[in-house]
Every structure is written in structure tokens, then in C-alpha cells.
């Protein structure tokens, strides 16, 4: 492959540690693996409560918690040009070569990508969710996405279904979109040391109890399964607005001893909950890529899931039983899962997962995307504006106006705060401590 270039990457998103979730873990693990490959990674996100300023995480991962509070669903208030000074300062201080934004629903990501393009940096965007086309919120979100992706160098999606969805929403040519899935930290999710006895079958559900995650399906499925199989027990972890409905269902069918509600489960405790079960049940109504299923499979559980979004692509057919998002179909799927349970060996499943999913592989594939992105040609302002004009009759002109003002503001900032005045951070390499795990729970070393 020749000599690998060392990239200096800025990851931008509203979603990062100390929150736990799909996007947050993705950014963290990807950054750690890229650091191990020798690149430099800096993360930019908003402040969380009183966690503001610069922090260092495992492996020398530098995180800028920009002092802005989130205002709606973890997103910062969109000010269009308010983030330009801080983004410019970070890009110049850290000598960044490439900006990587995550998640279409993050205002900070869109703004940072816009400023990075104005200043001439190459930009990569990763989309983690599926969106519809019909309701008012989705239509506006798709327009914003079209704006951001009009000029992106390359884009990454986490599954093939997500790629189709992103291409339709944003109008990007499909060759520009790479499919690089998420992965799972198999070292953290190991199966139970001793195999569980099978005279009582335990089905585990861990998810946020909201409408999108199919909590209403659970309310219909659990009593039916408990009725058909007297030796089946449920463990439900997670909290949310639909928890009340599940509690009511429990009372109505007198299932207090057969359905255990754990409440919100800390990310560090997820593995200990998973290894108490034989089957993992996922009832979401939409998923671009379901990491929960990977964690369950890595712990040796057989998965039963709804066939939505990117879920059919995630696991091989012998590790998952898929069903339509319909209660009777799901009960049939659970029946099938219980019947094939004797053939499942958790250790063997865990070893297979180690081969199938690996964060280092994800980092290598992302590196290829970065190499491609840096090869893209630079364009001057006029050519770039013509790409924005094609976004729509009114929207195109509005986007052009926004970009022109950004360009002017950038030049003003260059006069007011010249680049020579911004001190560049010297490179330093932490000696890699191979014994320390890179899981996010034991890693926060903050330099005060």
C-alpha cells in the first residue's frame, strides 16, 4: 500500500462522553483505534453540566468541551456563525488536516462542517440514523442534510440500508458513500464463565422504553409468551416514558415473579445483565444499525429481533431470528429461538463475533476513506457556490447566501485574529500502555 500518511483528524458531534449511546461509543472507539494506528485525533463537542474545557482521555485523546450548553435533545443552539471563531482556533492550533462530523441530528456537526469547508479543509460525514421523508421535521432535516452534504468530500454510512436512505435524502452520488459498520468491543462483552442451565429460559430486553424502540410491542408480546411457556422469565432493563405501560401489563397479568424490571442500567453493568439470559429480544421499530444486538451476540445470547432498517444485515442468519414488527410474528420467532437454543454455544458465538466485528478493522477502512477524501481537489468559492445552487429553487440561493456570509466573516476573522497569533500545540506521543483496556468506563484521566 505504500507509506501510510499520518492524518490529523477532528471529530465533531454533539454526542460524546459522558453520555452513552451508539454515536458516542462509535466516536470514542474509532478515535482510540485511529490513535493506535498512529494518527492524531481531537474531538470537539459541547459542554456537559460543569464539564467544560479541554480534557484528555485514554491514549492521549484530546477532547474540547466547547462551553455551550445543549438546548434541545442534546443539541447546541444553532447560531450559524457563532461557532466559526472557536472552530477556526481549534483547526489552526491542532494543525488539523481533516474534519469528521457525526450524526445528522447534531447542529454542532453541521456548523463545524460548514466552517471547515469555508476554510478549505476536507470533510467527511458519518450518518448514524434512518429518517423518513414524509413529516415536517424530516423534510427540514433532509434539507439541512442536503446543504451539508452538497460539499462533503466523502460520506460514511453504518449499513447498506442506511446508505440507500442517505443517498435518497441528500442526493449524493452513491459512489461517494462508503459503508463501514459499527463494531463491538468483544473484550468487554464476554459470555458467562459457566453455561446457564436451561430448565428456565431467561429472555433479556435492554433498551430505552420509548415508542421508537417498540416498547408497545413488548407490552403485547410478553404476556403471550409467558402464557405459552411456563418456564420462561423476562428481564427488562431500561427506562423511559413507556415504562408505565409495562408495569401496568405486569400488574394486569400478575407477572411480577416472571418479569423483572431493572430500571435504567448503567453502561458498565450491561454485560452483567446480559450474561444472566439465554435470549436477547429487540423490538425496535426502526434501526440503522443495532449495536445492542452485537453486544448480546458477543455475550453468547441468541437474538430475536424485528426485521427493520439495517438489522437483517448485522448478524448471520444462524445467530439471529428475525420477525415482522407484529406481536404474533414475534411470538412465533421466540418459539423458534427457544427450539434452536440447545444448539447454541455461547463461547463459539463469542469467538465468531471476534472475527466478524472488530474496531481496528473499522479504523482501517475509515483510514481508506480519509485517504480518498484528501485526494479530492480544492475548489474556489465560485465553483463551490454552483453546487449549492442546485439544491433547490429557493433553498439553493439561501444556502449560497449563507456560505458567502461565512466566507466574508472568515476573512474578517483572519484580519482580526491573524493565524500567526494562534499558538500551535506541539505533538506529543503517549507511550501506549497495552495492559490498560480502552473501554470508556475506566479511562477518564483529566489534567486539571
Amino acid at each position, binding site marked *: 500500500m505504500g507509506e501510510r500518511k499520518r492524518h490529523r483528524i477532528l471529530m465533531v458531534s454533539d454526542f460524546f462522553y459522558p453520555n452513552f449511546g451508539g454515536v458516542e461509543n462509535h466516536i470514542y472507539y474509532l478515535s482510540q483505534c485511529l490513535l493506535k494506528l498512529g494518527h492524531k485525533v481531537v474531538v470537539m463537542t459541547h459542554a456537559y453540566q460543569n464539564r467544560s474545557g479541554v480534557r484528555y482521555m485514554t491514549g492521549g485523546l484530546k477532547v474540547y468541551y466547547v462551553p455551550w450548553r445543549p438546548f434541545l435533545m442534546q443539541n447546541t443552539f444553532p447560531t450559524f456563525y457563532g461557532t466559526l471563531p472557536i472552530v477556526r482556533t481549534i483547526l489552526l492550533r491542532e494543525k488539523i488536516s481533516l474534519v469528521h462530523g457525526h450524526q445528522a441530528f447534531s447542529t454542532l456537526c453541521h456548523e463545524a462542517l460548514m466552517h471547515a469547508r469555508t476554510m478549505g479543509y476536507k470533510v467527511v460525514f458519518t450518518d448514524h440514523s*434512518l429518517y423518513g421523508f414524509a413529516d415536517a421535521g424530516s423534510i427540514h432535516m433532509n434539507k439541512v442534510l442536503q446543504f451539508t452534504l452538497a460539499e462533503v468530500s466523502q460520506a460514511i454510512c453504518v449499513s447498506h440500508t442506511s446508505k440507500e436512505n442517505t443517498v435518497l435524502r441528500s442526493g449524493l452520488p452513491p459512489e461517494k458513500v462508503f459503508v463501514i459498520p459499527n463494531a463491538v468491543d468483544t473484550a468487554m462483552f464476554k459470555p458467562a464463565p459457566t453455561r446457564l442451565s436451561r430448565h428456565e429460559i431467561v429472555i433479556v430486553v435492554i433498551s430505552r422504553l420509548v415508542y421508537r424502540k417498540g416498547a408497545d410491542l413488548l407490552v403485547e408480546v410478553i404476556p403471550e409468551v409467558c402464557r405459552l411457556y411456563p418456564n420462561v422469565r423476562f428481564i427488562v432493563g431500561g427506562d423511559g416514558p413507556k415504562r408505565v405501560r409495562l408495569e401496568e401489563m405486569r400488574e394486569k397479568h400478575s407477572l411480577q415473579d416472571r418479569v423483572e424490571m431493572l430500571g435504567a442500567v448503567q453502561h458498565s453493568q450491561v454485560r452483567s445483565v446480559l450474561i444472566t439470559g439465554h435470549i436477547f429480544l429487540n423490538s425496535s421499530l426502526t434501526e440503522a444499525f443495532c449495536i445492542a444486538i452485537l453486544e448480546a451476540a458477543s455475550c453468547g445470547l441468541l437474538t430475536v429481533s424485528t426485521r427493520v432498517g439495517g438489522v437483517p444485515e448485522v448478524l*448471520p442468519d444462524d445467530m439471529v431470528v428475525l420477525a415482522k*414488527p*407484529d*406481536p404474533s410474528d414475534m411470538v412465533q420467532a421466540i418459539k423458534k429461538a427457544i427450539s434452536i437454543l440447545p444448539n447454541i454455544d455461547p463461547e463459539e458465538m463469542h469467538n465468531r463475533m471476534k472475527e466478524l466485528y472488530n474496531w481496528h*478493522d473499522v479504523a482501517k477502512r475509515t483510514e481508506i476513506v480519509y485517504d480518498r477524501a484528501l485526494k479530492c481537489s480544492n475548489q474556489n468559492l465560485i465553483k463551490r457556490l454552483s453546487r449549492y445552487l442546485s439544491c433547490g429553487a429557493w433553498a439553493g440561493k439561501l444556502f449560497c447566501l449563507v456560505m458567502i456570509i461565512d466566507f466574508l466573516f472568515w476573512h474578517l476573522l483572519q484580519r482580526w485574529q491573524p493565524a500567526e497569533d494562534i499558538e500551535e500545540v506541539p505533538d506529543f506521543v503517549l507511550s501506549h500502555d497495552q495492559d490498560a483496556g480502552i473501554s470508556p468506563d475506566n479511562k477518564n484521566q483529566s489534567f486539571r
Partner: protein
Amino acid sequence: MDTFMSEVITSPTRPRWRKVAYGGMQPGFDDNHTDDSFLEEMVMNANVVKRDILKVMLDTVSISQYLCIVALVGLVWTYTLRSILNENSLLLLDVTLLGLGFLVLLLTKEMLSFNLFLRYLLNISFFISGLYVLAPIYQTLTTSISSNSIWAVTVALLVLHLFLHDYFGSTVRAPGALHNPTLTSCISLNASVVASVFIASCLRSRLLVFAIMLFSLQVFLFAPLVTYCIKKYSFRLHLWFSFGLMIATLAFVYTLHLLLFVMLLGLLIFVTVVCPYWLIRMQVYKFEINGPWDEAKLCFDITD
């Protein structure tokens, strides 16, 4: 990490591309490889209904009928304010309308039991007596506001009322109606009631105030219910009734003012002819996309 590229391809043709996310990079294919099966599960315009222009035009008759009703109400207000109609004729009009409305309800509703009828009668009498008692309050409501502002506010409220009105059903629910009133239909009803109060407050005599309030409220609250019952009973009857109403309204407005007549005629033509044609023309642009990325719809109702 070496296990990912460990598949040695012995056959000269590379293995087929599979739509899976596991197993790392598929050998022989880049990550941005776009297979021929890309977007093959996309379905376009699956739920789009083909519209027929005649049916759309017949559906717009409800809208033009209601426009005429509101025009007639405005007409009565103008005549009263100009003292062309006096209290007695107004009261007569009120009683006639009430009687006609009840007659229509009796004839068109399949199950109007005697109990229900008595209950309606009781409610109506409470309503009328309440209005009569409160009439002095309405009279003095806007003494300090100029009549131009009152007319301006009234027209604005009526426009809001027409804009947000529920032309499909009726806000005042008949027992056994399917749909609950929505927020916008409640707002429109309130706007019309406030407009009536404003106009009533311009008048001098207490009895006149009572009569005009009763008339306005009767029409705004119960006319949608009556027309809904007629429509449900027989579409033919609904069409004849609407045409008769439109002709009568146009005749009355013609005698009042020529400009208003032209405006009303123009509005009715716009609603009945131009809008359906425009709607059919726009259907070409409809682009509905469905595919495996859609959020699944629950097939059962969530009962809380």
C-alpha cells in the same frame, strides 16, 4: 486482523457481493461499491390516490355552501346595523331557523329518540335564557371602540374562522359522530363567536342585541351540524340545497352592493372550478418514497 483478509480466492471469479455488514470488507469490493441491487426495494407513490376532477368539484360544494352561509350572516348583520331589520323580524327569523333546524334533524337522523329530543330542547332553552340575561353586558362591551375598528376586527376574525373551519364534519358533535373536534376547529368556532359578540355590541337596544346574538350563535354553532346531517342523509339533497343557497345568497348580495357581489361570485368560482383543476395539475409532482428504512407501523391500537 489478519483473519479478515484470510479468505483466499481460489476461483478466478470473485465471490458475489452480499448485502451484509459483518465480516469486514468484502474481498474484491470497495466499501463504496454500489451493487445493481441498490435501491431495488424502494417503492414510489404506493399510497397515492388517483383523483377525479368531477368528484373533487362535488366535494368543494360543501366549502362554497358554508361560504354562502357566512355571507348571509354578514348580510343580516349589515341590515340590522342599518336598521333595515328590526327586533321583531329578527326574532321571527331566529324562531324560524330554530324550527327548521330541528325539523331537518328529526327527518334526517335515523335514531333521534324522544329523550334525546327533550334533552336538546332543554339545552336550547338554557342557552336562550342565558343569552337573554347576558345581553346587557354585550351591549356595553365596545362603547369606546370606533366602529371602523370593530368592522376590521370582525372581518379578520371571520377570515380566520373560514380558514380554520372543519369543512368535513362539525365541531359541535352529534351523538355517534366519528371524529373528535380538532384544535383548529375549536379555534375557528371561537373566532366566529367573538366576531358575533363584537357586532352585537354595536347595537343600542337590548332586545336587538339578544336577537342578533341568538341568530349568529345559532348559525355558527348549529349550521355545520345541520348541513352535515343533510349530507349524510342524501348527497342529492345536499347538492340541491347548496345550489339553492348559493343562488339566494348571490341574489341578496347583488341587491346590497355590486362590488361585493362580484367578489363573492369570483370566490365561489375560484373555490369550485379553479382549485380542483389546480389540485389535479399538482398531483404530477407527488413523490412518495417508501422502503426498508421506514419506521414500522404498529398494526394494533395503543390503548392507554
